């Protein structure tokens, strides 16, 4: 147990908060699921945490654009506190809807549009972690296998080359780009490397049995999504 306290931020309709809490627990952190309203009311929930997660799901049913309402709640409710959290070097991860929230809140570059195929898609993908500034993907030598489950996951950026040059492309889809993302980008960092946003769900591959090809010898410990959480927790513990 690392003693790292992780706050899992949820809004109305967030639905993978429990899954990511399980992943954090298995990776050695102490997760606490907190609703956006509670986060605004009780300062210590965020201020005392070592690591923050904006969990996946359908906050506000994706109405008027995925992540927009929860991003509004967080930016208006928390003011600069989330930015201060990042500035202090504490790791933040936004998964799926959480990624959409963080781009809308201005903590990550780019935007997420409707999948090119025009509908929700759930399938397993393989993610490469190119050399980047991300504290979440440091030393990931093997690709990460995990599922996607989203309708608005097409990553858009006006200048993806600049992003790559800056070392902010943290994860790329290998072989199958499931949503038309520019440059096969699955996950990006902020300029400091402590914030990671990604569309896939590493929290749904925390034990080898969850891999669809597990019975045929596929997957394996080095491909677990759990590795990403272990990295973040290790970084938080080192602060």
């Amino acid at each position, binding site marked *: 147990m690392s003693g790292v306290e992780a706050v899992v931020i949820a809004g*109305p*309709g967030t*639905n*993978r908060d*429990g*899954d990511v809490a*399980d992943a954090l627990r*298995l990776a050695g952190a102490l997760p606490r699921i907190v*609703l956006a*309203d*509670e986060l605004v009311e009780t300062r210590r929930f965020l201020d005392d945490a070592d690591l923050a997660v904006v969990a996946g*799901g*359908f906050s*506000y*049913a*994706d*109405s*008027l*654009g995925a992540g*927009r*309402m929860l991003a*509004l*709640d967080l930016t*208006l409710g928390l003011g600069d506190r989330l930015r201060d959290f990042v500035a202090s070097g504490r790791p933040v991860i936004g998964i799926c809807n959480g990624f959409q929230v963080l781009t*809308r809140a201005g903590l990550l570059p*780019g*935007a997420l*549009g*409707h*999948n*090119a*195929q*025009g*509908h*929700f*898609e*759930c*399938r*397993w993908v393989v993610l490469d972690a190119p050399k980047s500034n991300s504290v979440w993907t440091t030393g990931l030598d093997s690709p990460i296998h995990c*599922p996607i*489950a989203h309708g608005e996951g097409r990553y*858009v*950026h*006006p200048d993806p080359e600049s992003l790559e040059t800056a070392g902010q492309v943290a994860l790329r889809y290998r072989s199958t780009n499931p949503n038309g993302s520019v440059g096969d980008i699955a996950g990006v960092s902020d300029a400091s490397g402590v914030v990671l946003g990604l569309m896939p*769900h590493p*929290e*749904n*591959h*925390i*034990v080898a*049995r*969850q891999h*669809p*090809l597990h*019975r*045929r010898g596929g997957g394996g410990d080095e491909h677990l999504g759990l590795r990403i959480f272990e990295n973040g927790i290790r970084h938080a513990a080192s602060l």
Partner: protein
Amino acid sequence: MTIRTIDPDPRTAALHDGASALGLADLGEIRIADVVHLVGDLDGDAKRSLHALLVDPLLQIGTWDTPTGRAVEIVPQPGVTDPGADAARHASEQLGIGLRHAATGLRVEFDEAIDDADVDELVRRLLANPIVDRWQHEPFEIDAVDDPEPPAVADVVPIRGADDARLHAIDTERSLALDPAELRIIRDHFEELGRDPTDVELETLAQTWSEHCAHKTFRAAVVVRSAGDENGADDESDGSLDGDEADAPRSPLLDRLRRCTDAIDAPFVKSAFVGNAGIVEFVPGTTLAVKAETHNHPSAVEPFGGANTGVGGVIRDVLGAAHRPIAVTDILCFGFDDLPLDELPDGSLHPRRIRAGVIDGVADYGNKIGLPTVAGAILYDPAYTTNPLVFAGCIGSAPSRALHDGPHAGDRILVLGGATGRDGIRGATFSSATMNATTGEVAGASVQIGDPIVEKLLIDALVGAEDLYSAITDCGAGGLSSAIGEMAEGVGADVDLTLVPRKYPGLAPWEVWLSEAQERMVIAVTPRNVSAIAKRCERVGLDWADVGHFTGDGVLHVHHAGTTVARLDTDFLHDGRPRRTMTAAPPTPRRGTPTSRTVDDPVDTLLRLLRHPNIASKEAVIHRYDHEILGSTVVRPLVGVAGDAPADGVVIAEPTAQHGIALGIGVNPWIGLHDPEAMAFAVVDEAIRNCVAVGADPDRVALLDNFSWGDPRRESTMGDLVAAVDGCCAAAYTFGAPFVSGKDSLNNEYIGADGERHAVPPTLVITAMAHVPDADRCVTPDLGEPGDVLFLLGTTSPEFAGSHLDLVLGEPDDPGVAPSPDPDAPDNYRRLHAAISAGLVSACHDVSEGGLAVALAEMCIGGRVGAAIDTLPDDDLVTSLFSESIGRLLISVSPPLVSEFLRAMDDGVLQIGEVSASGMLTLPGVEPVMVDDLVDAFTNPDISVDHRSSS
């Protein structure tokens, strides 16, 4: 504000595809924009901050200008769920902007040269449904409407002294769907009371006594008429119809199923045929709730909303059994895609649109609420063209606890969830009536769009609150009238309708009481616990209201602003209904004279079977559903190297738990057309077999039945139903697998504009839920290593009636017999389970539609590997390859484990060949076929009726 995407909007491509598939006029370039109506005094700052919120500059361009040019704008009908409007209101509040009203819509823009009539046709066929949408060519001017509050009194309906003709007129006028005997009992009851009923009372009785709520047919006494017998006597011609006196009416179908469960007396059954869902306990300390529902009629008229609220409803059933929902299932039946528009009956939606809408509706609800949609099936038949079937199921889990024993006198009545509007009024009576060409128009209010986020909040608030309430039920068909009415049975309740939160003013008392507004639960709470419940609701942002209390006087008393609008004796409400007697003319299936088939080209036939949409890959649909959330899906609906091969059962198990549960589905209406009793046995067997094939314990299986049938007042239809229940009971006894819950949807018929009757084939869906002792030892159908030895378990006979071979090649004049029960199956399954548990099996697949050839092909597709078959189970090649005898499984075993496997199976398996590295499936006497060709056929389904014509 009008918002357009910068990159091509994928919705335009879908629209073009849809138009071309239906043969509509080519409308050239189409542009789609989202419209958000924000009504209020918005100054420049307000507009700027709303613009920043609603428009992402990397993705979209937004404008406040009123759009011009040739277009249609589509907006939801007033009162229809509009989550976008809710979000806009929430955002404005956050931003401190005063809004009077908000609404969202869709704007579809066309080139100026396009004909109005063509545009309207496109909108009507593909884009909008008058049941939930309205549209016009000009931009809508939307504003809040102040609906005047109507006088808060109920109408009195003069019924005393009414003759049958007058009663019939009242029934028709108010769409009560009551039969003459029921109307007479109601009239007599009020004559006794010396007053006339209010509209609230009459509607409450109609809902409570509806086929949908009361299951009048399954509770009816049954007189079985033998063929040609005009007197209704019963000569006990069918040996399986035992257990009742010969000439007396038989006991109701529901009683038969219950007695069967009682007789099996499985120790794991905690609650069967009571309340919202069946409850079992496979492992001490954890109970599982399971339920499946149909939402057929709503899905026919508003496919998205119908399927959407079907899923929402069955999830609430599990929540209403005090369990946390953990998985969703869906079984869907559609017509074929290539129906020409001129053959589509008036007032019906095209099967292609029904399919797209239903699948979207299922996906939308399950994905948003955050439950994995795991097990399912999709069936196609022309008979489902205008009457699609949608079976939605839900599984829940909870720590073991005593069943709730309330409500108690003095308990408060709390309504949790969404506000009440004029939604879904009279759904129970609507779904109990046969549809006709005008149903789509008059039943408009009967279908609603769901709001899965609100239901998610219900789960968040209620899971963990089980000790705070004494009774719980969901608001489904009949709304509060059914929910509170059922809870009040024998206790009585006092309800003040003014306390029920409304979406908008202007609702009459009966509308509040009957409204089927979705996403509401009712709980009975002792007064001291009300504040604890309130706190839980407020934490997650869920609305709640205390609308009255349970009284103890046995009377359902409903009032509104101080005026009584209903005072009904709950004994009369629940027990006053006259029991029906239904007459059944049992079917006379062919038994005992099997016929084989002639197949000229076995390889071509196999490929055609693989391409048949009932058999072919459902990959495109399954990827629309989130089957990964909760991280518990161990065996997915798609398996194999390329993730495109079908699984038999699915298995869910918490990530770090050793045990899990398997879900298997059995359904085969084509056998039902020949022999409903054999069909029922076969589909129970198939559901159980699917579970056993993945590693479940055949001695710990619970079953659900869902019957979708035609009008049971037709004696032959009722006879088919009786025979099917007989088959269910026989199978349950044979396998020692109890039914724990079920649901019937009758009157699945459609009277088209042609005046002809269209009925669905007898469609029985069996869901089996079984215990998996070791989730690490699950097996799937995909073949593994070349050299693995292949075995066939079970007996193969020439049983082709209802087979997919006949669907593909055409049915001969003498179809022969349907698959008959295999008495050895229970022991076979136990042995196989022991072998799987011992880790002796590398792959396993049940043999079902398309027979052995298709099952082998699917195993090859799963492993992308060949198989060399040298031994067939029958001397007749066609019987060996394509018969659909039940009770059979294919098993592959690694060579070093073969002798141990044979011992475990007591040598009761046939060795038929081995997995081969050749890349081909070779069968004796048949040209070898490349696995690539099998894959190609399997992954390119032909959802058109054309390929079904005989060659």
